[in-house]
């Protein structure tokens, strides 16, 4: 009897300690997810004063919606364009910043500063850079004798312009994680390798890179979720245009919810996005994790 009570007391204590974070988790994560999930099976647009259940109609419509497929394809290309490049670039920058003896902190700051600039400001800066005729990039292109190019107005170029900008914005942030990862590798390992006469490439391939895998994994997941999350620039620069050429899933959800006021459809889109992100994260976590060495 007494034992049971003591056990209950311990458990109670644990629950009390968990309570604050549990409240926030329930209130701002689980509850909205469940609500969204429920709403995605309802018709809730301007035409229906009260949301009513309509089964999987929203999902059916979505599959038939060309814009949805276009936006999804865009987003996948956006992820493919930004994730590996920004991660690789971050690694390269970290290796360089870690090595450069003089001006180490200057280089680090220079690499890192795009991270501190808010995305909205970044979008404005790059809007100017990409402006036809009097934009910075146009001037540079003129020196090379290239004709004027409309980066944001052209369906073929706009995605590249966005990808480039986001890489610039993110690589410095990821570099910080790599720098921390590099600091964690014992200097003795490098000295030992140098006693064996290993070339820098061998050292990188066989020591540095494998030991940075946990960082790479973490950074890749962040980069991937960011490629679905980062849409602030669209508001400033293109509004998803021209003809949805630069539109991304989250911005499309936003438009559906707050421009077209179709809450049901927006919820269905959201569920698709959440499931997609979960799948990728799960793959990275459970699929790749076994191959990674953690200290």
């Amino acid at each position, binding site marked *: 009897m007494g034992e049971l009570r003591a056990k209950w007391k311990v458990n109670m204590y644990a629950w009390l300690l968990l309570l604050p974070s549990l409240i926030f988790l329930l209130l701002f994560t689980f509850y909205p997810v469940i609500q969204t999930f429920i709403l995605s099976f309802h018709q809730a647009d301007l035409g229906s004063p009260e949301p009513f259940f309509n089964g999987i109609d929203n999902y059916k419509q979505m599959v038939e919606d060309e814009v949805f497929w276009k936006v999804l394809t865009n987003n996948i290309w956006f992820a493919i364009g930004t994730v590996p490049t920004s991660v690789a670039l971050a690694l390269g920058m970290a290796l360089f910043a870690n090595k450069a003896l003089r001006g180490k902190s200057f280089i680090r700051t220079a690499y890192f500063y795009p991270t501190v600039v808010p995305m909205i400001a970044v979008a404005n800066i790059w809007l100017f850079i990409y402006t036809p005729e009097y934009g910075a990039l146009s001037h540079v292109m003129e020196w090379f004798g290239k004709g004027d190019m409309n980066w944001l107005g052209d369906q073929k170029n706009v995605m590249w312009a966005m990808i480039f900008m986001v890489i610039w914005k993110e690589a410095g942030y990821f570099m910080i994680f790599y720098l921390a990862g590099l600091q964690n590798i*014992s200097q003795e390992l490098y000295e030992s390798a*140098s*006693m*064996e*006469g290993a070339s820098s490439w061998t050292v990188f391939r*066989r*020591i540095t890179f494998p*030991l940075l895998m946990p960082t790479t994994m973490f950074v890749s997941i962040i980069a991937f979720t960011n490629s679905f999350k980062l849409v602030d620039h669209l508001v400033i620069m293109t509004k998803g245009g021209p003809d949805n050429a630069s539109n991304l899933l989250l911005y499309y959800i936003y438009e559906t919810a707050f421009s077209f006021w179709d809450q049901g459809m927006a919820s269905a889109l959201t569920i698709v996005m959440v499931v997609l992100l979960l799948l990728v994260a799960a793959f990275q976590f459970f699929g790749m994790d076994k191959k990674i060495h953690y*200290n």
Partner: protein
Amino acid sequence: MAEVELRRISKMYGGQKVVNEVSARILPGEFFVLVGPSGCGKSTTLRMIAGLEEISTGELLIGGKPMNQVPPSGRNISMVFQNYALYPHLTVKDNILFGLQVRKVDKAEQGKRLERVAEMLGIAHLLQRKPKELSGGQRQRVALGRAIVSQHPICLMDEPLSNLDAKLRGHMRTEIRRLQQELGITMIYVTHDQVEAMTMADRMMVLRDGEVQQVGKPLDVYNHPANLFVAEFTGAPPMNTVPAIWRAGDQAGIEVAGQHFLPLPMFHGSKDQTPVVLGLRPESLQPALEGQSVDASCQFPVTVQGVEILGSETIVEFTVGDKLWKAKWNGQWHCKRGETMHVHFDPAQVNVFDGETGKNLAVTTN
């Protein structure tokens, strides 16, 4: 081939000289120990030999060839690091073979060497494990294996046993010594532990603040320390010392604390009234039993201050002058605090040091 020679090697960090004109000639197949207190420049010296640290001034020769400008991999040296420097993501096998793979040694040869080393160190059953799945002693063995497998004639070790517990340390000491002798490696071994130096070394070099204090065989260093520092650094407990005064004249000798006079005929040249320091090893002080005939000048009464009975031996503490001395006696002595006893010593085991420079007045070399 495997001779290492240091010619007045120094290391400057900024304006500070942390290694000062160290010279030594380490013979092929020799077990050479660098020993000294923390921060005396042992690791720095070793790292300069390895090529991991630049030599500020002086010359390093290996096998008679100047090595100052040669990268570490060209020096025919392997090294065991203090924290073993095992690659945490590689298996024991890959750790051991890393160097051979880098140097593109033939696969069959790699297998042969791996097998031999694994057998020699008794780690054959661990080859597929990662370092974190090993105990401290096993990691140590893998690190040794990695050094041996390269078959370099010279091996450097920087405090390789400091992460092990006392018992394992004793065991690995003999093992390292055995391997070194079996393979005929020239070993340069760094430690701050004088016991390690005494038990393992063919020759040892005592360093202090980057300066060489003495180089010699362990027993020579122990019996004839070149100066006070070496005397107090070696032995456990270290040598007992007390300030004294040299009396010249027809009855030459030293006077301790204004009372005890010890006739010592052997030092010439010291002037009357020179301040000196008298040193005696704890085991040189033995209890004088009744009925034993000993020269009265080699015997003195002491008041026991403390007793530590360690089982096979007993440490007895008492004051001489204003210094606390320790005597080490075989067996178990149940002395009481405050008890008065007579201790005697062999005058041949007395060390006399210069009061100012600390130099041993009997040791002429160095």
